[in-house]
Each structure stands twice: as structure tokens, then as C-alpha cells.
């Protein structure tokens, strides 16, 4: 039997969970039947249109109803390079110097209302994402700026022509929000999908109660043989963590798919023992500390470097990991990716030096040189416990060790965005969350505001932009990795534009009768539930 192993503590205390790599599900025969009840840690999603929204609530609620073109491997979602076909027949090799991707679409797929799905539907959906018509919004439009043309030579082929070859395209194509809609419906009303659901996925919509729950039943015509194993599912909206934990305890729900903090994990394991299974994984989300370069003294690179040198990431991470959902120290690239820095490479960067005393001495020296010993400033933070407030509390303590006096200004999400966008802050605790691990696109975040509008650091850096453009077009793996190291060094060390805090850690509890679901590095991934089954 495949089990994630865990040690149950006799009393209260740290419980360690080991995330083992999933063995393929073929070792056990899935049983058909049963309804999976899970919690969605949000109030209702703003709309059901995946192209338009960015919240995981939309994905957790509606992904089971839809198909996508390609996706991360459902049985191996933690891999950052393993992409497989959902609606296509096989993963294409790019032709034309890497600029053209030709996809053949499966035959015999039907939407839930019986209409057959063809390449025209795939193309219509992708056109809505890449270049939406007037009045329609596409949240991730900028990811696909590299697409030059989208063609459908026949009813079973879709061709993407790019402006230049880049390794960033395929992961972007596997984005979990890129649901395939019916062309006939889109032609009549491109806004229809905001309030309605009509897909070709493993489940059909069975009911939606506002703010309460969403229900699905098996789609008997699903094109992956044997799937879905479940008869249906019920997703219950429950924003309060304590309620979710209690519900899992009392078996009112089998689990949730976003992530719980370590204390909840400890509590559930202590109470349920082997009736609950914990999966955990590094999360493609992290906190980023951004000083406002337009506010003195943060325009002085010495001050920024002092800020990062004061922080003891290597010792702070394990301590924080016991109380907050963070774990792995990393640079600007997700730690599981081939483009990420190794520990040795990281330790050469400011803020990651293995000798913290030396690091802090350097920080104090820099502050003294800039004439700003004992500098006092305000840290802007978002009003969410996990892990924002925990990280901030720890940071303030770290900074006090080099004489910096920092106070916190905690605001709800709305004012937090507003303060960042208007530049009304000294230093801010930001978050950076992405779905598919796509380092080339993910590090765009560190580019200056002129290129990436959501960068709130207010700095200019042409050298950084040039480095990035070179990296994006580089096709040789080793050279690209070297360029990434240069980029990273400039962002974190030389210019200390931003500071990357410990990457978040995803802990997913599922009652032991839930099988088949594997954890991935993002809570947006692998949510169509087609390969989940209940051992009851």
C-alpha cells in the first residue's frame, strides 16, 4: 500500500512529515464509486470563468468540469518539466527553429451538452485567452505575448506560431486556468462562462449554492478510459481554518487542497493517527520583501544590502517551519526547478552567507558608512496570519539585531494593494505566487516597473532588462542557467532590489481513504480530480 509515512507524537510537540515521491498509482487498483467531500478555503469565487480570474477558489470549484490542452502530469505533478496531453494526442516537438508547436486534438471528445469538441473550440478558447475581444478580460494575457499566430488548418489540428523560440512557452501553455470552452457559446456571448459552466471535463455540474457548496457528478462520456473513479464530489466553501480542521477531524470532509499550517498538521495527526495522511511539498509561492527605491534612504544600495545581510535565512527557516507554512530557503527560482540555484551557489549571495555573524557585521558596517545606524522605518504587511504576519514578526526581530528599529503597519488586502501601487510605504512584505513552475516567466516579477507593471519597488535597471531578454531567448540549457545566475545575483546581491524569503510549504491533509491525488508545487495544479478514488 502506498502511504505517506508520518510519526505520531505521544504528546504535543513537533511532528515530522516526510513527503515521499509518489509511486505510480498502478500499484493499487482504483475502486469506482463514492462522493468526495472537500473544503475550499475561500468564500465563493468571483466568477467561474477561469480565463478571467486569478483566485484558486475558481480552480478548486470548477476545474473538475473542464479539460485543458496540456497539463502537468496528474500522477507526477511535482515535476517541473513533465507535461502531458489532456486534449491533444501527443506532446509535439517544436519545429521551425523551435517557433512552431503543432497539436493534434483527440477525436470523440464531447462537451457535457453532447456537442463534439474540435480544434475550433480549442482555438476559440485560446484566442479568448491570448487576444480577448473588446470588453472581455484575460488575466494572464501577458504570458502569451510571445504567440504570434494561432491557426487551425483542420478540425483536429491547432498550430501555435511564436515570435521567437523560448523554453517559457510550454509551461505557460500548461497553465491550469486555460479551460477549453465551446466555440458556439463563446460566439454568442463571451461573458456566458462567468456565471455558467459547460465543459468537457471528468465531472458535470450538479448544483451550486451561493457561498455554500458546489457539486459535480461523473461524466460518463469522459475520454480518459476508466476515469473518473468518483461518482461525484462536493466542494464546501469554508474560509475559516479552524472549521476546516474540525471538519476533517469529524470526517465531515475528507480534506482540503490549499494547504494547512504545521500546527493544524500536528493537531490532526495527534488526533487521527493513521486515519489521516499528510502530503507536503515546496510551494511555488513565497514572500518577497521590497524596499521602496523612491523613498530615502532605500535608494542607497548600501542600506538595501544591509537589510538583506541582517537576515539569518538558514537558521530562521527551520524555526519558522515549525509554526508557519514556510520551509525551504531559495533564491528567485523555485527550489525544485533545474534553473534554481544550488545551496552552494546561494551561499555566495548576500543574505545567504553561511556565517551570520560576518553577515551582520557587514550589515552594520554598511549602515555606519551610510550614516544610518539605528535607522527606524515601517514595514507594510498584509493582514493574514500565515505566513505574512509570522514572517514579519521574525524579520523585525532579525533586523533589530543590527540596530534597525522597525514597526509594522498591518492592513487588510485592499489597502495593502493600494499602498503598494501608490508607493506609500517604506518596505513592504509582498507575495509572489505562480501556478505552473515557469522560471523564465516567474522571474519577470523582478524586472523594473517599465517592463513588469506589478513591480512596486519603483526602480530602474536597464542592465537587468537586457539580461532578461538574453535569457529568455537562450536555447542552450547551460548558458541559460549561467544567465539566470547572473540575473539572480544582480537582483538579490549587487543591487539588492528585493529580498526573497523562505518559500512556502504546502501541507495537504487527506483522510486515509482518499487515494490517487498527488501533491504538486502549486494549489492551482492538478485539481480536476479525475484520478482520485476512495478506498471505502
Amino acid at each position: 500500500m502506498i502511504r505517506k509515512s508520518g510519526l505520531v507524537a505521544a504528546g504535543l510537540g513537533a511532528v515530522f512529515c516526510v513527503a515521499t515521491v509518489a509511486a505510480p498509482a498502478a500499484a493499487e487498483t482504483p475502486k469506482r464509486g463514492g462522493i468526495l467531500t472537500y473544503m475550499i478555503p475561500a468564500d465563493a469565487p468571483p466568477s467561474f470563468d477561469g480565463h478571467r480570474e486569478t483566485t484558486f477558489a475558481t480552480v478548486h470549484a470548477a476545474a473538475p468540469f473542464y479539460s485543458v490542452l496540456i497539463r502537468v502530469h496528474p500522477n507526477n505533478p511535482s515535476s517541473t518539466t513533465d507535461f502531458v496531453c489532456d486534449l491533444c494526442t501527443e506532446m509535439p516537438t517544436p519545429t521551425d527553429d523551435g517557433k512552431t508547436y503543432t497539436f493534434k486534438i483527440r477525436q470523440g471528445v464531447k462537451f457535457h451538452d453532447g456537442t463534439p469538441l474540435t480544434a475550433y473550440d480549442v482555438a476559440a478558447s485560446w484566442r479568448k485567452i491570448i487576444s480577448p475581444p473588446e470588453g472581455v478580460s484575460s488575466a494572464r494575457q501577458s504570458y502569451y505575448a510571445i504567440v504570434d499566430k494561432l491557426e487551425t488548418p483542420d478540425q483536429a489540428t491547432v498550430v501555435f506560431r511564436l515570435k521567437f523560440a523560448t523554453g517559457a512557452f510550454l509551461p505557460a501553455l500548461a497553465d491550469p486556468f486555460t479551460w477549453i470552452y465551446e466555440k458556439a457559446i463563446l460566439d454568442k456571448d463571451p461573458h456566458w462562462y462567468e456565471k455558467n459552466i459547460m465543459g468537457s471535463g471528468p465531472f458535470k455540474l450538479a448544483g451550486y449554492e451561493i457561498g455554500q457548496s458546489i457539486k459535480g457528478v461523473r461524466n460518463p462520456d469522459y475520454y480518459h478510459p476508466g476515469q473518473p473513479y468518483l461518482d461525484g464530489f462536493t466542494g464546501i466553501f469554508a474560509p475559516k481554518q479552524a472549521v476546516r480542521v474540525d471538519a476533517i477531524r469529524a470526517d465531515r470532509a475528507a480534506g482540503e487542497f490549499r494547504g494547512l499550517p504545521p500546527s493544524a498538521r500536528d493537531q490532526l495527526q495527534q488526533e487521527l493517527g493513521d486515519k489521516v495522511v499528510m502530503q507536503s511539498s515546496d510551494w511555488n509561492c513565497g514572500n518577497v520583501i521590497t524596499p521602496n527605491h523612491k523613498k530615502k534612504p532605500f535608494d542607497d544600495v548600501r542600506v538595501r544590502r544591509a537589510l538583506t545581510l541582517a537576515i539569518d535565512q538558514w537558521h530562521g527557516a527551520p524555526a519558522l517551519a515549525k509554526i508557519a507554512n514556510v520551509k525551504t530557503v531559495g533564491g528567485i527560482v523555485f527550489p525544485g526547478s533545474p534553473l534554481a540555484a544550488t545551496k552552494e551557489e546561494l551561499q555566495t549571495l548576500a543574505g545567504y552567507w553561511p556565517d551570520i555573524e560576518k553577515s551582520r557585521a557587514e550589515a552594520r558596517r554598511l549602515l555606519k558608512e551610510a550614516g544610518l545606524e539605528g535607522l527606524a522605518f515601517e514595514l507594510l504587511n498584509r493582514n493574514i496570519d500565515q505566513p505574512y504576519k509570522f514572517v514579519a514578526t521574525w524579520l523585525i526581530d532579525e533586523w533589530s539585531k543590527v540596530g534597525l528599529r522597525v514597526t509594522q503597519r498591518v492592513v487588510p488586502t485592499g489597502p495593502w494593494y493600494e499602498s503598494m501601487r501608490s508607493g506609500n510605504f517604506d518596505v513592504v512584505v509582498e507575495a509572489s505566487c505562480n501556478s505552473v513552475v515557469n522560471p523564465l516567466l516567474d522571474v519577470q516579477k523582478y524586472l523594473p516597473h517599465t517592463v513588469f507593471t506589478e513591480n512596486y519597488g519603483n526602480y530602474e535597471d536597464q542592465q537587468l532588462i537586457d539580461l532578461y531578454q538574453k535569457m529568455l531567448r537562450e536555447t542552450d540549457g547551460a548558458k541559460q542557467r549561467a544567465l539566470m545566475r547572473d540575473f539572480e545575483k544582480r537582483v538579490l546581491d549587487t543591487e539588492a532590489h528585493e529580498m526573497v524569503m523562505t518559500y512556502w510549504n504546502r501541507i495537504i491533509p487527506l483522510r486515509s481513504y482518499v487515494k490517487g491525488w498527488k501533491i504538486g508545487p502549486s494549489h492551482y495544479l492538478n485539481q480536476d480530480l479525475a484520478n482520485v478514488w476512495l478506498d471505502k
Partner: protein
Amino acid sequence: MHRYIVNRVLLLIPTLVGAAAVVFVLMRLIPGDICVLRLGSGGMSVNPRAIALCHAELGLDRPLIVQFLDFVWGFFRLDFGISMWSGKPVAEEIAARLPISLEIAVLATVIAILIAIPLGTISALKQNSWIDHVVRTVAIAGIATPSFWLGIVSLLAVLSISHAVFGAPWMPPIDYVPFWQDPLHNLSVAILPALTVGYRYSAVTMRMTRSAMLEVLREDYIRTARAKGLVERLIVNRHALKNALLPVVTLIGIEFAFLIGGLVVTEQVFNINGVGRLLVLAIQNQDYTLTQALVMLTVTIFVLANLVVDLLYAWLDPRIRFA
């Protein structure tokens, strides 16, 4: 009397318009933009074109005075507009959540009345005895305890006790089912929140009953009734209680209106899909139309409750009626 009623009803209008203006201004004072919130959730990058589109869709690019007039005029036509967050009509959003909140409020009131009035009366009759001290202590504990803390503790208690007694932890169901469909399921959802809210409610009512009864029991006509030789129970029921109930009824009416505010925190604790939770959500999302509608709903209930109570008072107390 008629003039009094008409006067009071007419006075509702400036109150409501005033409240509308206050909530309109307050919401727009809070920095933040629902479009950014909606499209930037989770920390992913936000598309500026999408935001501009969103503003146009929601009418946020119109001048403020136009938005305000639209809001007020809509309110009087009973058209509350579309929720900025979900795009559904506000009336639909509220209607989906009102039943459970009302149920909890009504249950809490019933619990409060059933407990408070008898206990308050006994406490007054036996002033300064040990019964009085116990009742007063219990009542004050009810007012002093934060209701959400009580909710957390009670939920934990239910889980732990059921675990200890039955071997498996039991928790009330987390999804709402209407009463006629499955009364047991429905009541088990509502009972813990109702008790949590009702405890405080009954505590306040108990104290008011006690002090009102104490005042009445000192009146001359009670002394006369006793001198006449009437049985104590008759005195209490026929004379004292009726007069004491006046301020108590006032309090119950006003506290019921305040319940809506109390529900906000309770619904968070128990994950009830009610109007309290909707209000918090609407404020956090900066959903102007929904927040405005909910606040106006609360304000209207409050002033109507006050009106009913005032009218009841006038009807029951001839001195006020003929003032």
C-alpha cells in the same frame, strides 16, 4: 396618537438617507480597489487592461455623485443592484444567506426569553439571597465573555466530549439545509451559534428583567396589593410582571436589532453562510454595492425595530400616548 405614528414614520426617511450617505462615504474612504483585489489575488501579476475593463464594467469610473444618486434612487425602488464581486444581483446574494441568519437570531431570542425572564423575576423576588447572587453572576459572566471565544471553546468542547464518550469526534454539519428538508440537520447547524449568541442575549435580558422587577416591586400599588392580602404569585403575575415587562420588551427589541452585528463574529467562528459573514466578505472585497445594501438592511431593521418598540411603548403606557 395617529399624528405620533405618522411623525415617527416620516422621521425614518432622513435617518435612512443619512445612513446611506455615511456608508457611501465610509466605503470609498477605505483605500483599495475591488478590481485589483479580484484580479490580483494570490500574488500573481495583474493585467492593467483587465483592471480598466473591470472599472468600466462596475461603473466605478463614473463621477461619485452619479454613483451615490444611483444607489439612493435604487434603494427606494428596492433595486439593490449587482454585487461588484460576483456579478449576481445583490438581492439574490442576500436572499441565499438570510434564512440561516434569521433562524439563529430567532432561536437565540427564544432561548434568551425562556431563560431570562423567569430567572430575572426570581432574582428580583429574592433580592440579595444566594439565588440572586448566582443568577447575577451567571448573567454578568454572559456579558463579560467574548462571544467568539465562547464559540471556539464550545465547539472544541463538543468535539472533545463526543470523542471521549463515543470514540469518534462529532461536529455539527457545516452545510446548511432548510428546516423543512431535514429538521435535525438544520437544527444541529443552528443550535451552537444560537446558544453562543443567546447566552449573552439572555444575560442582558435577565439583568434588565431583574432591575425592572425591582423597581416595580417597590411601587405603592404592589404594597397595597400585599396589604390587601393577595397571594404573592398573583401579585407577581398580574401586576408586577406586566409593568416590568415594558422596559424588558424594549430591550429585547433593540438587542434583536444588535444581533445582526453580533452574528458577524459568530458566523465566522462556526462557518455559517449567513449575512454576517457576507458583510465581512463584502467589506474585505471592497464590494460597494453589496456592503451598502447590507448596511442599509441592518440600519432599516434597527430603525424599524426601534419604531415598533416606541409605538408599543406608546400604546402600553397611556402617559406617553397623551403627552
